[in-house]
C-alpha cells in the first residue's frame, strides 16, 4: 500500500448556516483545494447523514461535484451515521493507498437547522434499533443517560466531572473562530448556583443540557494525496498513518458489559498499530464528545488512561491544553458543534491544523502525533484515525 498525506484543509463556521447543503459541502472543498494548490482532483467522497430526510435531497455527491465543476471525476456520498466523516476519509485513504487515485477530496456536510430541534432529534433517533429501542421513545440522549448512570454507579464519575468536560471544551472553543458555541461556562452557572437548574435543565438524567452537544450546520473538507503529489505540493507533510474501524451490537442492551465501548477500543488499537504508535505517543486528540461522558470513557478505551480513571485525569487537568494529552482543543462536538456528517472530517481538520502548528491560541506546542475518534450510533460503528507530522 502507498502512503497517504493530507495536503489541503477547509472548513465553514459551525453556526446556523443560511445556504443550501450542497454549498455547505462545496465551500470548504474549494478552500481545501486552494490550500493544496490544486484545481482538480481524481475523486471525491461526501460524508452526510441527513440529506435524504432533513434536506430532501439525495445523490448529494453529484450535486457537490457540479458546484465544484470537477466533472468527470467520480463522486460518492458516504452515510455511516455520525461516523460518516471519518468513513469518507477512510474511503479516500483506500483509494489512494491502493494506487487507484492520486488526489481525493474527503468532504463532510450537514444542514440540520433546516428542520426544528424536535425533528432533528427524531431524525438522529433513527440510528437506534427500530424494534428493540426506537418504539419505546429511545433517543441518543436517552442511551447516553442510561450509559452515564451505570458508569457513575460503577466508577464514581459525578455530575461535576461531566461539567468539567463541558467547561474545558467551551473554553477551548473560545479560541476557535469556526466553533458553534463561543461562550464561557462555569461550575457555578451550570451546577452550583440557585439558577443552575434553570440554566442547565435535565435532558436525560443524569445528563443535563450542558452535557449534550448542540445541533449544528457545517461543512469541512480535506484533500488527500499520494506521497509523490504531496511532495510536489510543497505543503506540510501530514501523514494519515493509521486507520481503524470496529462495530458493536445494534441494541445497546445486547453488549456483554454495557459500560464498555468495545468498538472504540478495537478501532483505536487498530489505528495505532497501523501507525506504529502507542496511546502514550499521541500529543493531541479529538474525541467524539456528543455527550460529556463519552470524552471521559473514550479517553480510557483509547488507552490514554486506565479504565475507570479518565475522570481522575480530567480532574488533574491532564486533558487541558498544556496538559499531558490535550483532548478536544477545537472545542469538541460539545462546543465546536456537531453537524453530524461533517464531524469526523472536522476532527481531522483540527488535528492537521495542530500538526501544522497553525492552531494559534489553542496550539499544542510541538504536536507531532494526533488522534481522532469518530463514534457512530451509540458506539456501534467507530472509526479512529492517526495522523503524524513528518
Amino acid at each position, binding site marked *: 500500500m502507498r502512503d497517504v498525506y493530507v495536503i489541503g484543509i477547509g472548513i465553514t463556521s459551525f453556526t446556523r448556516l443560511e445556504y443550501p447543503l450542497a454549498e455547505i459541502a462545496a465551500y470548504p472543498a474549494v478552500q481545501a483545494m486552494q490550500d493544496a494548490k490544486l484545481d482538480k482532483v481524481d475523486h471525491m467522497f461526501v460524508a452526510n447523514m441527513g440529506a435524504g430526510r432533513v434536506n430532501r435531497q439525495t445523490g448529494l455527491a453529484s450535486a457537490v461535484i457540479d458546484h465544484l465543476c470537477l466533472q468527470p471525476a467520480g463522486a460518492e456520498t458516504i452515510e455511516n451515521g455520525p461516523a460518516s466523516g471519518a468513513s469518507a476519509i477512510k474511503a479516500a485513504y483506500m483509494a489512494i493507498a491502493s494506487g487507484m487515485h492520486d488526489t481525493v477530496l474527503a468532504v463532510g456536510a450537514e444542514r440540520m437547522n433546516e428542520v426544528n430541534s424536535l425533528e432533528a432529534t427524531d431524525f438522529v433517533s433513527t440510528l437506534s434499533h427500530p424494534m428493540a429501542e426506537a418504539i419505546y*421513545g429511545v433517543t441518543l440522549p436517552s442511551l447516553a443517560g*442510561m450509559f452515564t448512570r451505570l458508569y457513575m454507579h460503577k466508577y464514581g464519575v459525578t455530575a461535576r466531572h461531566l461539567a468539567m468536560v463541558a467547561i474545558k471544551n467551551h473554553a477551548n472553543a473560545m479560541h476557535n473562530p469556526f466553533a458553534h458555541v463561543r461562550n464561557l461556562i462555569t461550575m457555578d452557572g451550570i451546577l452550583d448556583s440557585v439558577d443552575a437548574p434553570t440554566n442547565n435543565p435535565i435532558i436525560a438524567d443524569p445528563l443535563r443540557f450542558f452535557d449534550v452537544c448542540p445541533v449544528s450546520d457545517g461543512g469541512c473538507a480535506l484533500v488527500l494525496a499520494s506521497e509523490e503529489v504531496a511532495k510536489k505540493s510543497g505543503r506540510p507533510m501530514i501523514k494519515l498513518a493509521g486507520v481503524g474501524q470496529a462495530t458493536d451490537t445494534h441494541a445497546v442492551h445486547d453488549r456483554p458489559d454495557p459500560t464498555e465501548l468495545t468498538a472504540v477500543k478495537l478501532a483505536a488499537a487498530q489505528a495505532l498499530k497501523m501507525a506504529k504508535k502507542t496511546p502514550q505517543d499521541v500529543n493531541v486528540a479529538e474525541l467524539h464528545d456528543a455527550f460529556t461522558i463519552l470524552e471521559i470513557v473514550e479517553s480510557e478505551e483509547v488507552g490514554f488512561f486506565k479504565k475507570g480513571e479518565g475522570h481522575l485525569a480530567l480532574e488533574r487537568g491532564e486533558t487541558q491544553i498544556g496538559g499531558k494529552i490535550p483532548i478536544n482543543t477545537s472545542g469538541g462536538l460539545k462546543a465546536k458543534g456537531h453537524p453530524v456528517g461533517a464531524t469526523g472530517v472536522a476532527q481531522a481538520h483540527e488535528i492537521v491544523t495542530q500538526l501544522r502548528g497553525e492552531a494559534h491560541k489553542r496550539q499544542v506546542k510541538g504536536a507531532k502525533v494526533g488522534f481522532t475518534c469518530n463514534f457512530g450510533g451509540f458506539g456501534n460503528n467507530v472509526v479512529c484515525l492517526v495522523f503524524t507530522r513528518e
Partner: protein
Amino acid sequence: MERDILGYKCRKCGHVQYPYRTRCRGCGHVEWNGVDIVYDTVPLPKNGKLLTFTHLYALPSDFEAVNISLGIVELEGGNRITGQLKIKDPKIGMKVFGKVEVVRREEYKKYWGMVFYAEGA
C-alpha cells in the same frame, strides 16, 4: 390474553436471542425451511433486575407526556431488554416485573412493548 415479547431460539445451539437477527448470535447458524428463516419462538421471562435507567425530558415529537422513564432490564434466564418504566423511584439493581402494553402511538398505529413495574407494586 396476556401478550409476550418473543425471543428467538436457535434450532442448532439453543441460544435465545432478542432482538431478532438473521443469523444466530450464539453460533452463526441460519435455518431455512425452503422459503424463510426459522427459529423457535419463546416468550421472554418478565421478571428481572433493573440494570440502568434514565428519565427522558427531550421526547420524540409524537409523545405527549412531559417525560418518560426508560431502562435496561436483565431478565431471568439472561436475556436483556430495553423498556419503559412505570416506577416512582427506580434504583439500579431493584427487582422488576414487566407487562406488554402500548408504548407508542403514531396516528392509528399502536406499538406494543415491555413496561416494567417495581416488584410488589
